[in-house]
């Protein structure tokens, strides 16, 4: 507890420090810290923990014939349904796309983050602002912009035609979804990578070159291991929202590329199968939880 200990009530008269006084003072400080953080606790419990508990309850419930949910007679039927080929395919497709998006982001963002991190402070800050500028526009609007770019008469088809590659329709394909996801989450990769590369002493790169390492070897043996915390943080920040992405696949993907996010929404709103929607939500959360734990484990071991 970093809070400065106050004089506890009832011990005002004590003028010489005693172990009892010290303990009482520590207790008082810790009590006050708890009271001050109470609003945050209350907010989290009320609007996060309680709803989460409700979702969990529903995931063990049964859908009745009328599209309602019976909360009596708990069972694992909803979870069993996740093993069915349709759901399994969606799960694996989502996982695959999230991994692909993460890898592409990593490959694209790393050189860029390194470039920013090795500029002068002024240029560095300017470039970081550029990275964040897209956030000033609504996410939905940016996705619709991609719809125009990837669409029938959009930039990409025009370029592909001009290059003699024929008319290529990108919109409503898996590629379109990946392009959209990479675009949307790239800053989440760039920023942690930048933060960890920026902390690396660049004389280590010089030392590596001096010790006969090529540029690539220097990257593999020195830069990459030292920037691992950033690599892992960025990967999780991209992987987790990609896995549950809803807006981008809805706008840029077609019917054939249903992903987890859309499927869950469908279960709640169209199919009215709340238990399956709830159980899928929980599986998604479990995957994210594992990813986060991996981060803390490896992050803690590194340096």
């Amino acid at each position, binding site marked *: 507890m970093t809070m400065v200990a106050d004089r506890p009530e009832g011990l005002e008269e004590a003028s010489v420090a005693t172990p009892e006084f010290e303990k009482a003072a520590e207790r008082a400080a810790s009590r006050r810290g708890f009271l001050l953080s109470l609003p945050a606790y209350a907010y989290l419990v009320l609007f996060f923990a309680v709803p989460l508990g409700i979702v969990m309850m529903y995931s063990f419930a049964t859908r009745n014939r009328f599209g309602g949910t019976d909360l009596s007679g708990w069972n694992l039927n909803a979870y069993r349904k996740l093993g069915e080929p349709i759901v399994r395919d969606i799960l694996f497709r989502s996982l695959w796309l999230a991994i692909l998006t993460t890898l592409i982001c990593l490959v694209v963002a790393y050189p860029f983050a390194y470039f920013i991190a090795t500029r002068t402070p002024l240029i560095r800050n300017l470039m970081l602002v550029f990275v964040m500028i897209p956030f000033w526009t609504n996410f939905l609007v940016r996705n619709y912009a991609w719809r125009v770019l990837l669409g029938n008469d959009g930039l990409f088809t025009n370029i592909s035609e001009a290059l003699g590659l024929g008319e290529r329709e990108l919109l409503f394909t898996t590629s379109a979804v990946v392009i959209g996801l990479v675009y949307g989450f790239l800053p989440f990769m760039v920023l942690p990578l930048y933060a960890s590369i920026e902390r690396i002493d660049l*004389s280590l790169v*010089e030392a590596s*070159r*001096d*010790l*006969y*390492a090529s540029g690539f070897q220097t990257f593999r*043996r020195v830069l990459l291991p030292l920037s691992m915390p950033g690599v892992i943080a960025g990967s999780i920040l991209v992987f987790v929202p990609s896995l549950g992405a809803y807006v981008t696949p809805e706008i840029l993907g077609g019917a054939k590329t249903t992903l987890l996010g859309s499927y869950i929404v469908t279960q709640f709103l169209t199919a009215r199968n709340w238990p399956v929607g709830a159980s899928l939500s929980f599986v998604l959360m479990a995957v994210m939880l594992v990813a986060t734990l991996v981060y803390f484990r490896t992050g803690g071991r590194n340096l």
Partner: protein
Amino acid sequence: MSDRGDHQVSEQIAAVKLTAITKRFGSVVAVDNVDLEIADGEFFALLGPSGCGKTTTLRMVAGLEFPTEGSLKIFGDEAGTLPPNRRPVNTVFQDYALFPHMTVEANVAFGLKMQRVAKHEITGRVQEAISLVRLEGLEQRRSRQLSGGQRQRVALARALVNRPKVLLLDEPLGALDLKLRQEMQGELKALQREVGITFVFVTHDQEEALTMADRIGVMNEGELLQVGTPAEIYEHPVNRFVANFIGQTNLLDASVVSNDTVCLANGVHIPGKSDLPVGTRVAVCLRPERAGMHPPEGVPADQQSVVGRLESVTYLGNALVYTVVLDWVRLEVRRENQPGGYRPHVGEEVAVSWTLDAISVVRA
């Protein structure tokens, strides 16, 4: 006396040879038309104040900077445009730049691994290098678990294990405290003798350069002012800057009258050898420990002197430093703390004296 030391490296190929090397950063000239030869097996110091271009010069030899102009040869081969991994030199960096994610052993083995040396040979050479710098038992430590002196040794081992033709050291002792620094000075010197590799080190500490180097190159504002042995540089500095930078010195303004006479600023002609043209503004360099002190009327006949008033005496234990004020200059005289002898009091008139071989005439 020599301006630029191109002696003693005549026959064999120089370990490092810079010819008209210039490095510009934008409009700033960091290294200005430097010529320098460093002999094989030499312990060479590049000495100068910060920002004088000494580190840039070293980095050009390492390949961490490319020269703007000029030729840089390492053992006869043009190397100025080679990347650092293709030069037969290794560097001990100022803050050591040890890889924090590797053990001592892995740090030392790094260069050999990159050169694809056979595994069993790496093990042997790494052990050898680690014992050379007396770090046995610390192989599995990380750099953050080491003291400053130990880090310095790892950096040395990591460079030496590659058996470079030239070892470059950038302020190698700068990060150590005084006691350790003095210890390491001796160790470095002994190590260099043992391995026989050419060492080039950069320092701003003149005492360090005098103590360790076989030869010293003094730099200022990008220019190499003088190259020579510590004795040559200390006793025959080429100009005022070098005289001032190396050790304590008194500089008396003067001008050349003939090749063995100069005229001091107070109008007195004194003997002073120089090969500079008549009328050149010069300074007479008189080291405090080479100056004598006598009562004004008691100066020995074979000595020159100027008379001033004793302003202060600083007691150093093993020596006393007297500050004598004249109306045109302030002089320091350092006397060993011997019993007896002349002990003037503050405020008295004293004569500061010197023999002809105690002074040198330098360009102002």
